[in-house]
């Protein structure tokens, strides 16, 4: 327990809140890497996931590829990529590494959401004369939204935990406290940094839980009602 008290003392010490690189700066860096990687993961994985879910083709291949990407050791990948692009561009290398981690979850959420839409629903949408694009965007995507948000949520958690590695290639973030704490045996700093990461992860998770709640409302009809009234205007 004293360790937690020391970690708390470390977290609240004035050094952490003023000076060159404050705790808030580090949280900002950490959050930035996480959100950028999450955004890129979504940009990559959502179209592919929708395509796979909508056509029902290529599922085996994409899932296998994404899963294989997840198995790559992140620290090794980060080192190799950083050496490849040069350390001045380390943020790009780091983003790629985090995206590789984020894509499988988002992909699974995207295709599962689309795939699990009742066949009768998509059939009737087509019978009403909807084009494949309309079926995807107006029927399948909204109905699959809760699962997609779920995928984003688990990706965010993965990335926020792994963003610790950014400190290894000179990008800062909350990982600095962990790396430095281990080497200097400053366990208050190490635990303080870990607590900050956990807090950040909980906040992110809560945000996505909230988004998930709204996604369910969209999927269960309220959302579509409002868009259809918009259409009549």
């Amino acid at each position, binding site marked *: 327990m004293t360790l937690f008290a020391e970690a708390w003392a470390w977290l609240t010490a004035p050094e952490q809140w003023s000076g060159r690189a404050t705790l808030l700066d580090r949280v900002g860096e950490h959050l930035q890497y996480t959100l950028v990687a999450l955004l890129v993961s979504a940009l990559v994985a959502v179209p592919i996931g929708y395509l796979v879910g909508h056509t029902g083709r290529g599922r085996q291949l994409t899932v296998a590829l994404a899963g294989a990407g997840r198995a790559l050791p992140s620290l090794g990948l980060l080192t190799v990529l950083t050496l490849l692009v040069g350390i001045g561009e380390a943020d790009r290398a780091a983003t790629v590494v985090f995206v590789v981690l984020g894509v499988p979850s988002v992909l699974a959420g995207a295709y599962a959401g689309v795939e699990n839409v009742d066949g009768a629903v998509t059939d009737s949408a087509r019978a009403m004369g909807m084009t494949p694009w309309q079926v995807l965007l107006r029927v399948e995507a909204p109905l699959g939204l809760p699962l997609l948000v779920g995928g984003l949520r688990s990706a965010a958690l993965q990335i926020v935990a792994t963003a610790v590695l950014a400190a290894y*290639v*000179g990008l800062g973030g909350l990982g600095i406290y962990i790396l430095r704490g281990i*080497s200097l045996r400053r366990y208050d700093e190490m635990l303080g940094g870990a607590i900050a990461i956990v807090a950040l992860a909980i906040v992110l998770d809560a945000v996505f839980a909230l988004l998930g709640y709204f996604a369910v409302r969209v999927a269960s009809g309220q959302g579509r009602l409002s868009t259809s009234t918009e259409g009549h205007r």
Partner: protein
Amino acid sequence: MKTSRVALLATAVLTLAACGSGDPLAEPTEEGTSSGTGSAVVVGSQAYYSNEIIAEIYAQALEDAGIDVTRQFQIGQRDVYLQALEGGEVDIIPEYTGNLLQFYVPDTEARSSEDVAAALPDALPEGLTILEYAEGQDADSYNVTTEFSEENGITSLADLAGYDGEIVVGGNAELESRPYGPDGLQELYGVDVDFLAIGDSGGPLTKDAIRDGTITMGDIYTADPDLASGDFVTLEDPESMILAQNVVPLVTADRAEELAAVLDEVSAALTTEELIALNARSVNEQLDPATIATEWLTEQGLVGGGS
């Protein structure tokens, strides 16, 4: 075949050690000296390639002297292996005087090889001791590119005060808090620097960062073969800010005499130049530690017919 047997033995020893860990095992060794001299010496190493080569050299030298050796290499953190040494699970590991001293006395004032080595026996916990240290060092050092050094006429940390531009120092995250980090540079040399944490201990990432100008100077260990490549200039440290890091065998006290008889000779031959050459064989020729150790010991006349 040989390696698999060693692995098997290591596993067996590990299991044994795990069964009777800590003090209950330490007590009986004092009365029953039979397990003292007779049993195999467990040689440990850090998870650092250069350290493993030195450990392998110790191991082969001991084997040549007729002592049974068990290898327990690649033990990561200093916390972990020092505990293993204190618990008697490891008998000897190659260490670096400065880092070892700093582990037990974080605010030590000692800097030179002699002072650091002199301070160590008192700093070490009971049951551990050091043998003669080698002249060879693997210390922190600040390095700039050769172009930077030539353009600005900077060859020493003392020259940095006269440099107008911004100076960014790169190294492991903990360097920022070390006495020879940014604070030391400010105090002893009057230089204000920014700090960038790069976590590969002066490895390829740090070197790349120096080359491409992301950092002005980087912390690279002095036994790194790349320092001889001509790309870098190691800045002198006239104020002796940086702690000496002589290679030294850290051993359990009850086996010190037996081990010193063999290893003092080895340490005497281990200069920084030799250390760099050893590391270069690993980095450039991709040889394994066992081969490098055998060839070096033979070349130095430390094994075989000589003794």
